[in-house]
């Protein structure tokens, strides 16, 4: 499974939740949202080996 955030890409094994995947790559689950094929998916969704997940940052500094 592929996790993409800004210019970074991580390859992970499927079978874990979105939240666990985000934590595994060292990001804060509160600070990103996950999209699969452009659709928002919640943090408890279990990811498959072939999934490609795009993470969108939600924290603004202004």
């Amino acid at each position: 499974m592929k996790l993409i955030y800004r210019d970074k890409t991580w390859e992970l094994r499927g079978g874990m939740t979105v939240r666990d995947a985000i934590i595994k790559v060292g990001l804060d689950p509160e600070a990103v949202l996950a999209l699969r094929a452009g659709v928002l998916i919640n943090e408890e969704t279990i990811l498959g080996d072939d999934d490609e997940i795009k993470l969108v940052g939600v924290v603004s500094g202004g």
Partner: protein
Amino acid sequence: MAAINLRHHRLRLCSEHLVAWTPKQVARAIVKYRMFAPTDRVLVAVSGGKDSLTLWDVLLHLGYQADGVYINLGIGPAGGYSDLSQAKVEAFAAAHPEARLTVVDLARQYGATVPELVKERRGRHPCSVCGLVKRHIMNRLARESGYAAIATGHNLDDEVAVLFQNTLRWNISYMARQGPVLPEGPGFARKVKPLIRIRERESAAYALVRGIDYIYDECPHAEGAATLFYKEIINQLEARSPGMKESFYLSFLEQRARYDLFRQERQELAMHPCERCGQPTTAPSICAFCRLWLSSAERRRLRDIGQEFP
């Protein structure tokens, strides 16, 4: 299938319910804090980011007469941050013909971009120049065009981070004024924050689900901002005790009102009209905005004749 978990509310919402839930939260805040009336005209300060476009979308959805103002600050190269943001705002406005968009181009209308002004005033942080410029222009437009209030996209996370920072520094004068509403005063338009009950995660989710095309990039000047660091810490606290953000901020507002805290600091400062633009100022003759542009023009004049600004 749930699109988002709102742990602090013990809610799991699908896209459809998120789109219904968000305006309800905004409507509650508008009524609770008496931000504006249903027939009022509101000016939404739009940046092209998730919060301001979400706010504009929600206000229109709720039936408010909400117009937008975008200020192109000239940040980034041509086609860069400011231009991209403007394109997003214009695309949103084009899809909502019931709303009017005013675009103010700082370089074209005033003569310099924010980075140019900052370069001239070495040592001054871009965010302080940017804030000064935006406050002045928005206030002027709101007053001249008869808007009942300026609505900004500040969300719960923004407000919690500011309160956290102000509390750490015991910045009483800011703590006295921080809140969902900054009432109008002589020469000052009312300012409101209708997203006060919405977290930035929820605001971004709403924008994504509604298909609002917003700018993902952060302003390049925000990199390393203290607010980002505070938000990180607050998110860690929130992960341990869900609901901490609401409790910290909303209890602060309640206790301040209940015990009439910081009464002295809330007293109005003596204001008079700026001799140049007429907007209110505490400065003796001309306001900080006019001083900024006068010194900028003078610097450019002196530079053109090979002299240095004193």
